[in-house]
């Protein structure tokens, strides 16, 4: 229940995103075995059907693959998971920049502000 999912967005894409981030950050290494559907369901506090669907989507996009009777594994090539992470970084950064610019703050000032607050 510590996954802090956004209650306004569908759950399935959020699970997909989370797992991609964990893979891109190498919290789960390439080739390594993934947690079971049930483990993810309990941890995230979501229905096992949604997790199953998320795993299937990740399989279709080539991030993970299933071995019969032994579970799910991370593919050796993790560039898709990295793409997902980069896309998120870009979106979140742009959203932040837009907010700050709409407050009339210059880019130089934004950088200064980030430096000032980064340890908080």
């Amino acid at each position, binding site marked *: *229940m510590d996954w802090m*999912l956004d*209650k*306004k*967005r*569908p*759950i*399935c894409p959020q699970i997909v995103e989370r797992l991609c981030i964990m893979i891109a950050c190498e919290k789960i290494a390439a080739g390594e075995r993934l947690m079971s559907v*049930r483990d993810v*369901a*309990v941890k*995230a*506090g*979501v*229905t*096992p*059907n*949604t997790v199953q669907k998320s795993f299937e989507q990740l399989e279709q996009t080539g991030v993970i693959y299933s071995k019969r009777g032994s579970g799910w594994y991370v593919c050796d090539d993790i560039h898709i998971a990295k793409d997902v992470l980069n896309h998120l970084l870009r979106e979140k950064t742009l959203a932040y920049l837009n907010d700050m610019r709409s407050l009339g703050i210059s880019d130089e000032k934004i950088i200064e502000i980030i430096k000032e607050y980064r340890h908080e």
Partner: protein
Amino acid sequence: MSEILRCDHLTKQYGNLYALNDLSLLIESGKIIGLLGPNGAGKTTLIKIINGLLTPSFGTVTIEGDSPGPKTKPKVSYLPDISYLNNWMTVEQIVSMFADFYDDFRPELAYQMIQNLGIDKKMRLKTLSKGNKEKVCLILVMSRNAKLYVLDEPIAGVDPATRDYIISTIINNYNPDASVLISTHLISDIESVLDEVIFIKNGRIVLHDTVDHIREEHGMSVDDLFREVFRW
């Protein structure tokens, strides 16, 4: 996926009052379903009919094709909204009572879950805290190997830690061949564990959809939509 529960034109009338009004629904196996509605919407009436405790005025309900009765009792595991267990009994006595009553009851599983909670099986029910009592009741119900689990308000009046425990117990006991029907009005706590939600109001279904489809279509949580639908 196979059909677990079917209601056709289910109606329950008390004089001029319709507790259920021409309600039809189908629940398939492998689903965790929320039965949501304000007080007096008809949730408990529906649940009591499913369990054969009330008979409909009109319409039918079947569990795997059978009407509520001796044939469906072994298939439906029911957690009522009020505890009916004897307070003087010990946890162990209640577990063996359940084992006597239900062929599909798995005492090892119940004891495992009770032990994980750190509850002594020699303790009498009356000495347990409210939260622990609720947990024991849920454990008993989930320890059966049933086709349909019907939980009436399992998370009402418990603290957040107990609620989380109840939610993970439901997920942990997930069985693709069975379905779980949970009635509640505390939606935000539970919506992420639900596959589908059924909104009922004045004895009628106003919405039956998947959680993700609701969020996608309305751009809001099921809880927010609930507040919108039931605004007065």
